[in-house]
């Protein structure tokens, strides 16, 4: 079972855990009475959710006129928020799929929570195009279904329709991937529970037994789903970028958008994972499973993708100048120096400059700076989408229709409200399901536990020794 491991690898599971201890530690948060911190956080989140419901109702009742969109600026906070949330929703599948294919063991500590985050973020993202339709009850028009109008089909050549397919496929596949991974762990919780709790977890664990054949199929399924999700996750933000890139608006019509959007999505997704994990590991006492090693690995990804995004920003400026095309040059000069210059500054400083802090190992391993940086990146990536959308539209072809846009309270309420929706869902998840993948952590214990590798390892020579250490530990 134990694959060869380099002795210089840092352990990913600390505290000399036994299998039983792993079960205890990770199941414990779902089994005890919620802490005061959780209750307060939940109340705040539900308040945000209430605001969301109110603002959606208001938008539908009064109409889209309650937003400050105008004929020039047809996309504002709504699509900014949509792209922001979708971007955040990329880290989960990236961690679970791409890191699984690359056999990165550190994924096991954070994949479950990141995948849950992905699903909730995509739920939040999906709200905005729907509300933006104005007539929400006609939302099913976006799907091709036989209808009495011909049938008149949707436009399969439109990137907006591609988006419908991409986001709904992404949501479905992420949900299946996440839940299938969750089933064995829900069975673990089931087998520790009694009474009604046991009945409920029994229902949701689908009758999992842990049979060898089932595990074999489960692993095969996970691997293929990972293989499918990898191009999927890259396709989703590529297609989101097509919403802009296939248009003929200067500032949007660029071939750099797909890779730049994908890098940005990974960047913001990891930032949101950090925001959540820094808090969750503390509140749930999971510091031995989500270690500084995990945090540091994710900070490296943030540094890399942040820098890629920075290169993309500069490339855009360079190409605009180099193209010699005045409208393109104007679009970018306007982006940097125009009426929304402040959002460009926000984007550049949060996304490109601040992550450079992570060149220093001390910073990568500092929880305080990780948290601060994750918030910075979240803000910066929101600005990026605002910069792309609002600044470009505000100065279009005809100077007579140039315009400026500030959100109304309804639009702000909708954004804050989706944060409420997101955190409500995440807080419920953190209460009812194991936030760290129990079975997967157990399966890497012998190659990543700190009693087996690292400076505190009890034996450097493997196998028989380790078996005895293990079984004596169990008897304590």
């Amino acid at each position, binding site marked *: *079972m134990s694959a060869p491991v380099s002795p210089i690898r840092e352990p990913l599971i600390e505290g000399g855990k*036994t*299998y*039983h201890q792993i*079960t205890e530690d990770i199941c414990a948060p779902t089994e005890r009475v919620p802490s005061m911190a959780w209750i307060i956080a939940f109340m705040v989140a539900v308040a945000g959710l209430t605001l969301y419901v109110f603002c959606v109702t208001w938008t539908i009742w009064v109409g889209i006129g309650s937003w400050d969109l105008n004929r020039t600026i047809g996309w504002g906070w709504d699509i900014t928020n949509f792209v922001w949330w979708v971007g955040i929703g990329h880290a989960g599948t990236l961690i679970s799929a791409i890191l699984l294919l690359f056999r990165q063991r550190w994924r096991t500590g954070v994949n479950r929570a990141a995948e849950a985050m992905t699903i909730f973020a995509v739920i939040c993202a999906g709200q905005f195009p729907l509300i933006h339709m104005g007539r929400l009850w006609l939302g099913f028009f976006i799907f*091709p279904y036989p209808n009495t109008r*011909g*049938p008149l*089909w949707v*436009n*399969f*050549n*439109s990137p907006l*329709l*591609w988006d419908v*397919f*991409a986001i709904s*496929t992404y949501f*479905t596949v992420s949900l*299946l991937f996440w839940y*299938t991974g969750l*089933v064995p762990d829900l*069975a*673990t919780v*089931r*087998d520790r529970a009694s009474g009604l709790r046991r009945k409920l977890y*029994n229902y*949701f664990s*689908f*009758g*999992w*037994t*842990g*049979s*060898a*054949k089932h*595990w*074999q*199929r*489960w*692993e*095969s*399924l996970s*691997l*293929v*789903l990972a293989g*499918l*999700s990898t*191009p*999927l996750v890259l*396709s989703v933000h590529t*297609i989101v970028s097509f919403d802009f890139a296939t248009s003929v608006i200067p500032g949007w019509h660029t071939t750099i958008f797909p890779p730049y959007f994908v890098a940005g999505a990974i960047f913001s997704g990891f930032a949101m994972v950090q925001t959540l994990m820094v808090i969750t590991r503390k509140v749930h006492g999971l510091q031995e499973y989500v270690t500084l090693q995990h945090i540091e690995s994710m900070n490296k990804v943030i540094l890399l993708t942040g820098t890629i995004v920075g290169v993309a920003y500069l490339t855009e400026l360079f190409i605009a100048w180099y193209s010699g095309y005045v409208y393109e040059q104007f679009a970018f000069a306007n982006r940097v120096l125009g009426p929304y210059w402040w959002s460009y500054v926000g984007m550049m400083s949060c996304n490109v400059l601040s992550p450079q802090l992570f060149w220093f190992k001390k910073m990568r391993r500092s929880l305080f700076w990780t948290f601060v940086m994750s918030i910075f990146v979240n803000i910066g990536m929101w600005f990026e989408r605002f910069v792309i959308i609002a600044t470009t539209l505000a100065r279009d072809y005809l100077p007579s229709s140039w315009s400026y846009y500030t959100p109304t309270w309804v639009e702000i309420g909708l954004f804050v409200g989706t944060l409420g929706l997101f955190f409500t869902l995440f807080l419920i998840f953190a209460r009812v399901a194991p936030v760290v993948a129990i*079975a997967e952590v*157990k*399966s890497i214990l012998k190659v990543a536990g700190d009693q087996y590798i690292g400076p505190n390892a009890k034996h450097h020579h493997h*196998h028989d020794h380790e*078996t005895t250490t*293990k*079984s004596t530990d*169990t008897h304590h």
Partner: protein
Amino acid sequence: MKDQNKEVLYGLYDDEEILLKAVRQAKDDHLDIMDVYTPFPVHGLDPLLGLSESRLHQAGFVYGAIGTLTAFLFMSWVFTRDWPIIFGGKPYWSVPAFIPITFELTVLFASVGMVVTFYTICGMAPGVTNPTLDDRITDDKFCIAFQTNGASEAEVDRLRSFLSSTGASEVNSKTI
């Protein structure tokens, strides 16, 4: 299960390496293991138990191909036969524009198909209760189970001594 209850003799092991040794021993002794239950996937177990590789991924390929064809043929039919419309001066059959949706549906069909197949062949669904031998199997115990319906007392004793001699920390029997 439906027609006849299974009488099962099972041993619980504390570690997957002891389990693997025991399974290897069982293979050498030509004992017929009913099933092995573990808290996480134990690598190296499948060949010892004679489990052939799962064909789930082949099913996934077929589902994916159905998705590809569904998406591509449907869009082609709509835009060349059912309601041809020119968009942006492009031909009716604008194949490159069909690629994104064709790809998405391929992934969607393959994933949903595989997941549904997985749960179906494993006999799992929401609300299903499959009999389990011990609650600690999903925690830290590794279980080898023998079916003992119709086995003579001597045979059961042999299995029992096999389990304890290969390092099982507990040996129990249960009818499931």
